[in-house]
């Protein structure tokens, strides 16, 4: 058996690849569900019924998908230019804590402008947190995978320090959480009696904006050229360093925005368990979407649905809810195989 590079990839295959990957992942994970002693089909039925079978379920899934779309875009943008930003989680928390710091009502910011100011601050905080690794890579060639990954821990510990100390909410009965964002700084609901908030619409807009940026702007073409062929981009006179720096800033800003949106739209304050792994899941979302910004939306919704539905599956069938992590991780692996098979064919 050997692999041969495909001359061209049929469009159908590009659409079929993620679907086949997800199907394969579900089949593989059914072994584990069976092992846990649950009826496989009924368990999956419960999962998707909970996540997508009711108005409440759908809105919960979309609420969960909101930060995932943004971190997924953050990863897609960076990876497209071959800048491996693995620090989405850290940038997410920096965005969140910046919102909590500015939104407490102490600073006398104009209430009418508070929401945009807070979102901007979150994005800026995320971007700045990535500035160090980006400059280290460009100036000294330091591997950004290592620096961004390690800065995640720095970010969590920094947040922990702040919410245990200077930013601790005195009314929280001693729980480590930040002072809440004032009413004027919160995002409005999109639908009554649900938790779905304006952040979801913002995330969709961001996906459209990134898609436009990629396809229709000088910056987008430059970033793609750098990612797909750095030497040729440099030869064509594209300022490779500047493009990479801007790309990194955009990626950090999107991850920071995810944190800001999660605080202003859903939680209202910051704790150290604000993110159940939105950063790492963002990488998976981006890969499931094969780095296509519009593909990030369905990919994020799929991942969110698995997480939302897994709890119901756990209650109904006694399958540990960790299965959600396993399904998503397996989907990443099968997606990588599927992507590979869109580029190569297997021949005997």
């Amino acid at each position: 058996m050997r692999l041969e590079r495909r001359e061209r990839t049929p469009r159908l295959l590009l659409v079929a690849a993620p679907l086949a990957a997800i199907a394969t992942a579900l089949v593989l994970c059914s072994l584990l569900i069976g092992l846990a002693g649950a009826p496989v089909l009924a368990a999956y039925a419960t999962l998707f019924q909970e996540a997508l079978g009711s108005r409440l379920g759908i809105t919960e899934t979309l609420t969960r998908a909101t930060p995932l779309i943004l971190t997924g875009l953050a990863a897609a943008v960076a990876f497209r230019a071959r800048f491996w930003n693995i620090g989405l989680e850290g940038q997410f928390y920096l965005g969140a804590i910046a919102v909590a710091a500015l939104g407490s009502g102490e600073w006398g910011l104009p209430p009418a402008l508070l929401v945009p100011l807070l979102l901007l601050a979150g994005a800026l905080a995320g971007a700045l947190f990535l500035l160090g690794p980006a400059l280290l890579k460009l100036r000294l060639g330091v591997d950004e995978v290592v620096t961004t990954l390690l800065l995640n821990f720095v970010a969590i510990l920094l947040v922990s320090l702040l919410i245990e100390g200077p930013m601790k909410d005195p009314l929280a009965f001693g729980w480590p959480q930040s002072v809440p964002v004032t009413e004027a700084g919160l995002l409005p609901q999109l639908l009554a009696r649900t938790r779905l908030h304006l952040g979801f619409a913002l995330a969709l807009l961001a996906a459209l904006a990134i898609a436009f940026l990629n396809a229709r702007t000088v910056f987008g073409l430059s970033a793609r050229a750098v990612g797909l062929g750095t030497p040729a981009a440099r030869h064509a006179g594209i300022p490779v360093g500047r493009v990479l720096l801007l790309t990194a800033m955009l990626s950090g800003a999107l991850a920071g925005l995810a944190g800001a949106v999660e605080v202003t739209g859903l939680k209202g304050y910051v704790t150290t368990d604000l993110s159940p792994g939105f950063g790492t899941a963002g990488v998976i979302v981006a890969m499931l979407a094969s780095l296509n910004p519009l593909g990030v939306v369905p990919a994020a919704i799929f991942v969110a649905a698995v997480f939302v539905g897994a709890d119901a599956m756990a209650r109904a069938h006694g399958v540990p809810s960790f299965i959600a992590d396993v399904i998503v991780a397996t989907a990443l692996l099968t997606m990588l195989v599927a992507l590979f098979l869109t580029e190569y064919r297997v021949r005997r």
Partner: protein
Amino acid sequence: MSPVLELTGITKRFGTLLANDGIDLTLGQGEVLALLGENGAGKTTLMSILFGHYVADAGTVRAFGQVLPPGDPKAAIAAGIGMVHQHFTLASNLSVLDNVTIGTEKLTAWRSRRGAARRRLVELAERFGLPVDPDRRIGELSVGERQRVEILKSLYRDARILILDEPTAVLTPQESERLFSTLRGMASQGLSLIFISHKLHEVVAHADRVAVLRGGKLVAERPAAGASRAELAELMVGRRVVHASRVPLEPGQSLLRLDKVRVEAGGRRLLDDIALDLREREVLGIVGVAGNGQDALSRLFAGTAPQPAGRIELLGRPVARLDHAGLTAAGLAHIPEDRHHEGVVGDLSLYENAVLERIRDRRFSRLGLLRRQAALDHAAGLIRTFDIRGAEPTTRTRLLSGGNMQKLILGRNLVEQPRLIVASQPTRGLDEGAVAEIHRRLLEARGNGAGVLLISEDLDEIFRLADRVQVIFKGRLSAPLPIEAASEARLGLMMAGEDGDAPRAA
């Protein structure tokens, strides 16, 4: 004479491309067979099947009467087939001896039998006239010496059939002569050889028999003695190729002048006090064996090199730094040596590559927004004007053939009517038809008043295009010679670092 090697009905398909189409080929003992064909004719595929790197869709390979199992390079080696690749597969930090013996001993062996291995290597080297020092590290050897090690490596593994893939591509004319006399000696001792080539003169001069491949088919087999180069060229290309001829022109004013220009990188001096003067309406050839500083010279004009020391005048004005914007503004077009790596981004569309170098130009973008339709139209124009085949503006650039890719790279530059063209190896690896087309375009630009700095390893190309020639050796440039005063022998000596003026030793 029974054949030592027998290929029957070899067929291999890659997708829709028929790379080998029912090829029958035999090789006799002690025979030197030349496999002639353009790029993409299927030579390398055929040899890869023979050596077990690919599995044929149909057909069999017999060596010494035994059918070889398909897709098994180990079986091919065991049957006595050795392959010398165009890009050497040697470890540069190991000694000659280590490179030759590597992989021939069991990993679990208690001790290495180096003494015996050394005796065997020395004995082989002597018998076949391939002198090397077993203890030198590969990194210290010249290209010609490395090639000898590659050959010895095959002989050490008891190869009785040797396949050489474009063996002279990296050699000076003199080194090539020496190689062929060695190969002849090996054949007279009973070894059988196949060498792949697209250079007609060496095929006619050094092979017993020539097999011509075209479009995956074996189109002709001839005894080399008496074969005409014109006929072989026509067989190889499938039609008559008409080469543009250079008409003498009076050169104009100086476009580019370098004086005592020096480039250093990592403590090594890549260009050492070079001087040149390129004028309007002339082609200045820079010829040399690969790796003597051509890359650094070419990069000077790509705007991606470390900044040089020395005096540089562009269009008569001294310039302090050579950056992309300044060079482009001066009307300089740069054709990089490695078109896949530097010329285009393979996974972008053709139209995106067509405008990438001038993406900030008002024609192709406004306020940071791409003018996609304008770029598509521009690409369509290039395709028409420069006869880029099998492509549309939205085609993924990677899918173009080498010749068409080079037409795109040259075309997007020529359409801007450059005053100065720096072209590095512009026709390397292209088929004859594309070579003729690229040459015609370069001469046309010269006729329109442009100056062309042609960096090439191909003497035929230099003789065909250049008005004057300078030889590059170890980062130094010789004084310019009018092309009429340069002969292949003289340039060959200069390329090997000898003084071309000195009387030749008999």
